[in-house]
């Protein structure tokens, strides 16, 4: 699975938009880009996934440029409860579409302040 690089930490204030960028220069054709969120004392939680261009759901948006070598997770109007570690992962589609093992990097610790 492709290795990802993302900032170790970020600070923000309530109500701001936060963009976390992840680099994955060696992403393969079959790889999807997935973001997970982890709160203290909890397991990671799936947030969003995309292959190219832009994906939006009720939690976040994911922007992927044409070369797919990076991606940006955008969290609109963050609140204190968005303080968490955010992981960027890339994974391929082996096993006919069944999910595979996830490879986590260090993640980005987002600290939202009042």
């Amino acid at each position, binding site marked *: 699975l492709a290795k990802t690089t993302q900032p170790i930490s970020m600070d923000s204030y309530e109500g701001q938009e936060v963009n976390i960028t992840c680099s994955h220069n060696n992403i393969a054709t079959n790889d*999807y880009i*997935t973001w997970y969120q982890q709160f203290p*004392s*909890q*397991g*990671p*939680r*799936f947030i969003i*996934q995309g292959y190219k261009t832009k994906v939006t759901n009720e939690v976040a948006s994911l922007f992927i440029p044409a070369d797919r070598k990076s991606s940006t997770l955008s969290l609109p109007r963050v609140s204190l409860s968005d303080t968490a570690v955010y*992981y960027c*992962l890339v*994974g391929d*589609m082996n*096993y*006919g*579409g*069944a*999910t*595979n*093992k*996830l*490879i*986590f*990097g*260090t*993640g980005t610790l987002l600290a939202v302040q009042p």
Partner: protein
Amino acid sequence: EAGVTQFPSHSVIEKGQTVTLRCDPISGHDNLYWYRRVMGKEIKFLLHFVKESKQDESGMPNNRFLAERTGGTYSTLKVQPAELEDSGVYFCASNPGLAGISSYNEQFFGPGTRLTVL
């Protein structure tokens, strides 16, 4: 619908003892995964069950670790004998399998078991 549950939430044992961690996946999920994070390190994959069969156990650190999933429902991860370096948080995750996946690479994680070996 209940999520993935893990038991115990915390375990403190002495070096050389045996500990068994349990994971109950979401009902009907064929895929079950074990991960762990040791202090200061990243979350690492241990192994993957498809129903009761081990699909991938490439992440198991050594033969002191034994995972089972009898009947394809809950899974146990036994560490025997435990060593100091086994301390960390052990996560279990599950997903439905080929059918029923709304997003690729979406796994549903439990809260983890924090293991401390003294």
